[in-house]
């Protein structure tokens, strides 16, 4: 366990030293959302209808951007090798890395989302749903994305490849989360959607670390 804790601490320290790594995706999040009123229609009535979906698509893209770096440096500088040498469970380490990723990406996205909600004329009733869906949904994005990051860590220019692998897997999260926000906006219950997101989170937290651990070992063969 000690190495996991040390790794979580070290990665948070690294994030604090290089704020660009997590700030840039946040700015990207903001910019993507700003494109829609400019490109489609700034009419608040129209915007409020698509707000939930647009914010979620932007969050998804911002997450993908930040995922590429998750394991790359650890593979290149030998940290991954030291993990394996330590004999500690790669499953727990993969879970720890996904947690760090969520703290540096999903959490700030969630906290920033009300600002985008205002920009996109999100109905007042939908704000809690937006926060809740992002709070439950973005950890799933981090967990699933970590598998892709582990698979492509050894590949040169793996960023685009990572998006290709992971985007189809993100669809269920996108569907339920965006629909939760939309339903909240028109005054309907969204418990079912959040419940489904919660179930996906539980499933992803149990299963994806296995895949990540197996994928991490690929980067060590030779």
């Amino acid at each position, binding site marked *: 366990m000690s190495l996991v804790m040390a790794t979580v601490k070290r990665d948070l320290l690294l994030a604090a030293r290089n704020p660009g790594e997590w700030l840039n995706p946040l700015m990207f999040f903001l910019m993507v959302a700003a494109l829609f009123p400019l490109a489609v229609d700034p009419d608040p009535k129209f915007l409020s209808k698509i707000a939930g979906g647009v914010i979620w698509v932007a969050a998804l893209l911002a997450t993908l951007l930040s995922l590429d770096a998750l394991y790359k440096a650890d593979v290149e500088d030998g940290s991954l090798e030291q993990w394996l040498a330590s004999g500690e469970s790669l499953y727990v380490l993969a879970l720890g890395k996904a947690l760090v990723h969520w703290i540096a990406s999903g959490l700030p996205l969630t906290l920033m989302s009300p600002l985008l909600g205002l920009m996109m004329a999100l109905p007042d009733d939908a704000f809690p749903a937006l926060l809740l869906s992002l709070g439950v949904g973005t950890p799933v994005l981090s967990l699933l994305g970590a598998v892709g990051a582990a*698979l*492509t860590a050894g*590949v040169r220019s793996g960023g685009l490849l990572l998006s290709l*692998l*992971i985007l*189809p897997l993100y*669809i269920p999260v996108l*569907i339920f989360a965006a*629909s939760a926000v939309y339903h909240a906006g028109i005054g309907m219950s969204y418990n079912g959607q959040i419940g489904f997101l919660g179930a996906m989170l539980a499933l992803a937290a149990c299963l994806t670390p296995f895949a990540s651990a197996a994928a991490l070992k*690929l980067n060590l063969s030779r």
Partner: protein
Amino acid sequence: MWQWLVRLYHRLGSPKWFYEITSRWIPWLVGLSVVGCAVGLVLGLLYAPADYQQGNSFRIIYIHVPAALLAQSAFMMMAVAGAVFLIWRMKMAAWVARSIAPVGASFCLIALLTGAIWGKPTWGTWWVWDARLTSMLLLLFLYFGVMALQRAIESEDASHRAGAILSLVGLVNIPIIKYSVEWWNTLHQPATLKLTEKPSMHPDMLVPLLIMIVTTYVFFALLVILRTRNEVLWHERKRSWVRDLLES
């Protein structure tokens, strides 16, 4: 029984045995595919009655449905072969998995294109965000992902393993994706005319469909075997039996 299974397993793991046995299978597979295709299409195109709602455009069913079914089961087979490779490190399984990917993706593409074409006379537009077509599209993306990943990783062993892991992750996700897409579809589209859902199909329509489904699986086996044999030859090129084969 158990011993027989163990022996079969060891044989399946032997590339040479695979190559030799499939040499004998290929003529049969070709014959079955050609005959099945001919019978199925003649019955389907000439003898099956036209659909009372869709008219003759429903005859696309004889390629659309078999291709769609196959594309889904091919992904499952690819994942299972990948799992066999991951667990028992059987190289044959990795070669089979790699051979399935492009063939499965081809059938997925066929299902998508024929579905879109079928949509034109049925719904009046080339593309409708119908639940089945949408999940087919996502399945195609999953195939693309596996193939792109396999191509991008230089080390052969690592690329096999990465493909296997991704296809297993995809396999777990497919039911979730299908369910969520169907749920999303009921929200956004009031139940419209479904392409292939019939309360009961006339036997004259159903029999050719069943023939085409079986034929498609046989043909798929043939295509995968052809590709796997090439993998076997390439990897065993320095062994004496391939050299003997080249000499003859």
